[in-house]
């Protein structure tokens, strides 16, 4: 049975915890709004990029000598897994669900006899995976999205992936991130980056004949520039989705924590009042029985 003083201290401590979690929830909510806006603003670029790629791939289809980034190396032995996690914790199942999925992916690939390499983005993913896959982690990036995700960050990661690919260090690259569905639900998503699955050219409505593009300088010349760009765009999109998801997950987690803290305070207060009353009663009985004994 805790003493009255212990209970009082406990209540104060839970109250201040609740203050912190509710403040974190508000911060996460405002960051979520910003992250969502950023994700929306980035959409037009990705869409147009996709359209161009579709047009290019459409005209290159069936031809020999498509760039390796599009066609792949023809092998399937070494897989690079890019893991997008967050730098900070306290965001519910955000990081653990990513890590769980990556573990499963690694196990699957290894069972098929593939070599797996891992590139982590975010501190939490690295720390979690280091425990049993330390040897697989070839590179890790941190400090993304402290002040909102910038395209330069994505570009840097994409450049790393591209240079690894050009050095022949992997055949297939998959990025794993939390896709933002709503503030309370995220979905772990695997997306293949290399070889890049070409978006199916959507048929223009009305059965219109698809425009034949002229290319300047040449299809190959443009693709050579477009593909690394596209990689950066895809990474950027994953980072944006992930940062929106992170804030969403944190908001939900902190909301729950605040509610739990509230319940705990209620419970502790009842307990405190009861034991205070019990003590008063006890003291009264002592006084009365003391007086009676005289």
């Amino acid at each position: 049975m805790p003493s009255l003083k212990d209970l009082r201290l406990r209540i104060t401590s839970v109250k201040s915890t609740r203050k912190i979690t509710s403040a974190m929830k508000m911060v996460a909510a405002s960051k979520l709004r910003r992250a969502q806006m950023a994700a929306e603003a980035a959409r037009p670029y990705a869409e147009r990029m996709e359209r161009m790629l579709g047009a290019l791939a459409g005209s290159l289809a069936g031809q020999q000598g498509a760039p390796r980034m599009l066609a792949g190396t023809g092998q399937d032995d070494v897989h690079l897994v890019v893991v997008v996690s967050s730098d900070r914790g306290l965001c519910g199942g955000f990081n653990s669900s990513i890590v769980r999925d990556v573990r499963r992916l690694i196990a699957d690939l290894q069972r098929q006899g593939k070599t797996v390499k891992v590139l982590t983005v975010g501190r939490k993913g690295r720390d979690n995976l280091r425990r049993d896959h330390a040897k697989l982690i070839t590179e890790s990036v941190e400090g993304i999205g402290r002040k909102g995700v910038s395209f330069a960050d994505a570009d840097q990661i994409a450049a790393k992936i591209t240079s690894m690919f050009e050095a022949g260090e992997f055949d297939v690259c998959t990025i794993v991130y939390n896709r933002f569905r709503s503030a309370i639900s995220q979905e772990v998503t695997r997306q293949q980056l290399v070889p890049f699955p070409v978006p199916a050219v959507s048929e223009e409505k009305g059965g219109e004949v698809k425009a034949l593009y002229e290319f300047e300088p040449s299809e190959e010349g443009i693709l050579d520039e477009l593909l690394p760009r596209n990689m950066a765009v895809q990474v950027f999109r994953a980072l944006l989705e992930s940062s929106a998801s992170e804030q969403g997950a944190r908001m939900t987690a902190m909301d729950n924590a605040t509610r739990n803290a509230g319940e705990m305070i209620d419970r502790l207060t009842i307990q405190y009042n009861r034991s205070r009353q019990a003590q008063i009663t006890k003291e009264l009985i002592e006084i009365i029985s003391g007086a009676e004994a005289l």
Partner: protein
Amino acid sequence: MAETLQFELVSPEKLLVSEPAEMVTVPGSEGDFGALPRHSPMIATLRPGIIDIYEGGNIRNRIFVAGGFAEVNEERCTVLAEEAVPVSELKAEDAAARLKAAEEALQAAETDQARAQAKRAHDVAVAMQAALSGGQPAAH
């Protein structure tokens, strides 16, 4: 009003410009080209330079881009650029500082990749200075 095409300038972070224009000249990597309404479909890479947006036969807006891609079709001209600044907002000091940084990077570059990257930054800086002095740099 004369026939127009929809001009769009998009950076990875957001849609920068989306407006109708009578003509747009774009610095293609193999020479500048003008896009008028009903231009035949084309995809081109860009070099660092200036996009001019025309209205009523006059330049309405000039935007500096540091390379990118352009997609032109009958009713649209879409430019994907990583970096785009209106020419009126370019600053001489920035351009000079970038040129200096790029020159240093070019000197220090050891791998082919780093050299190519520095070269590109250098080209951008040179084009930026050319844009400031009013002319277009020569196509290379």
